[in-house]
């Protein structure tokens, strides 16, 4: 049996077995550490639950209900919305910017406590940093991530914005996650292995948040990518899609090698977090569908 025990995993995270293990972000095992793989959820999966501050208590309950002890928290679960009828996009944007740069760290620490009290670790803070962010706003975003206890700030920013973030991630001491989609026509987009090579070269503090759904849809080789780059991968967004820009599909019905990826992580004792995220349609409730997909992953590791 090659799977890590909880104790082994803790030792590995704290002391490190190899230089590559040291390069990985340490995580504390919790209720969704399953047979050698730390699972978490990208709560985008709860399609029936708008990602708002007001719905955060429901999110926490659902995470516990589905058996998750780790989450990638999208900024919209924490930030107020300023767009409203009669408010221009520019005014709403400026209000949000002001809110970000003036909100104290205690605000985020209180949010962290909500999750801590439920036994859920905020692994990463999902942010949408783009060209419109001021330097002060980027600083505030990283500060927010740290106050939440996140190991990194993750987003789908393109290569140009990623390059701009290199000094910020070094300054704040947490990693920046580069998340891919499957837009192969945009040279600025994170989409294939070559684009990750370019993005990861901007900073040693950058990590890949490999979205295996989109990588598969872009005809990428997930297994080969993990073999070659596992030291620079903080997490995978785990879900299924079909090749050739194909549609999203329930786990096991697309082309993403979900089972192989999970076993690869387990058998190599990589501390890559498996964050469930999907956008295939379902008639079931979000909680029911998440449970089905999570159970699929558990069976893969049984």
């Amino acid at each position, binding site marked *: 049996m090659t799977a890590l025990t909880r104790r082994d995993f803790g030792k590995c995270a704290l002391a490190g077995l190899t230089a590559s293990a040291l390069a990985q972000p340490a995580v504390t095992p919790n209720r969704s550490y399953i047979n050698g793989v730390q699972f978490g959820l990208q709560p985008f999966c709860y399609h029936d639950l708008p990602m708002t501050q007001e719905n955060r208590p429901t999110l926490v309950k659902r995470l516990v209900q589905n058996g998750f002890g780790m989450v990638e928290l999208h900024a919209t679960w924490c930030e107020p919305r300023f767009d409203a009828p009669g408010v221009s996009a520019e005014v709403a944007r400026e209000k949000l910017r002001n809110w970000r740069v003036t909100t104290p760290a205690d605000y985020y620490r209180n949010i962290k406590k909500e999750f801590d009290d439920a036994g859920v670790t905020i692994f990463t803070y999902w942010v949408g940093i783009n060209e419109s962010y001021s330097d002060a706003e980027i600083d505030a975003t990283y500060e927010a991530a740290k106050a939440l206890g996140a190991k990194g700030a993750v987003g789908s920013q393109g290569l140009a914005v990623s390059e701009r973030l290199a000094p910020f991630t070094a300054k704040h001491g947490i990693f920046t996650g580069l998340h891919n989609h499957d837009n192969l*026509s945009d040279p600025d987009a994170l989409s294939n292995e070559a684009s990750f090579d370019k993005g990861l070269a901007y900073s040693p503090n950058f990590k890949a948040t490999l979205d295996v759904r989109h990588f598969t849809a872009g005809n990428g080789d997930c297994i080969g990518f993990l073999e070659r780059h596992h030291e620079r991968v903080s997490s995978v967004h785990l879900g299924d899609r079909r090749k050739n820009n194909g549609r999203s599909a329930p786990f096991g019905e697309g082309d993403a090698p979900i089972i192989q990826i999970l076993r690869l992580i387990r058998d190599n004792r990589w501390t890559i977090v498996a964050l469930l995220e999907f956008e295939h349609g379902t008639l079931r409730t979000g909680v029911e569908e998440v449970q089905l997909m999570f159970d699929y992953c558990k069976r893969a590791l049984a």
Partner: protein
Amino acid sequence: MTVSYYQAVCVAVLVAGSLWAQSAGTPGYDINYIGLPMADPILQHSKEMYVLYGCSYCHGLHLESRGEATDLMHSRLVGRDENANLIGPLLRAGIPQTAKLSPMPQFSDLSDQQISAIAMWIHYARQQGRYKELSGAKDLSAGNAGAGKAYFEGKCSSCHSMPGDWKGDPAALRARILRPKFLDAAESWQVERLRDTKTAAARQRHLALLENYSADDVANLIAYLIGK
């Protein structure tokens, strides 16, 4: 036959019980998100296909515009589509070349029936949404009668040779323009009615108009018809 008090109470209890059971949740069917099953099973099926293939994730169950996804409520392509003749090929091919972060995926594995069902829901939701939008438009007196005449001659006069007596309440007239009463009649599958192409064509044409009217078009038509 008159319904007794006892019968009325029984029916009320049964209906309340049914609604309670449905709102309490049926495993495998997210009633809070998808809504109560519709009276028309064909429409219900089309709605379920739209949800099941993930369209609602990006385009919204009732075509609420979300993020960078195309706003189907106001898309010109959807407005020009007839029986999935434009939506179908686009669904099958996707839009891989795009400036957007996430390209529209392709759904090449879906059957013609599934594509038709998805398109049917898109049109139905658009008709409901446009009716709501246009019914809520404010100033009905701001129309231009000349523009209304041109619109009538271009889009309506091939079937409606004589506008008739339209004097009256502008709001009631708007309701008649947006949704003529014959649209509410149940469609028949009786063999002798299958060849009633005139009604079917009129139905399709009026629903297409509903999907494409602008608030100005409606106000102009009202100005023309009332002032005639």
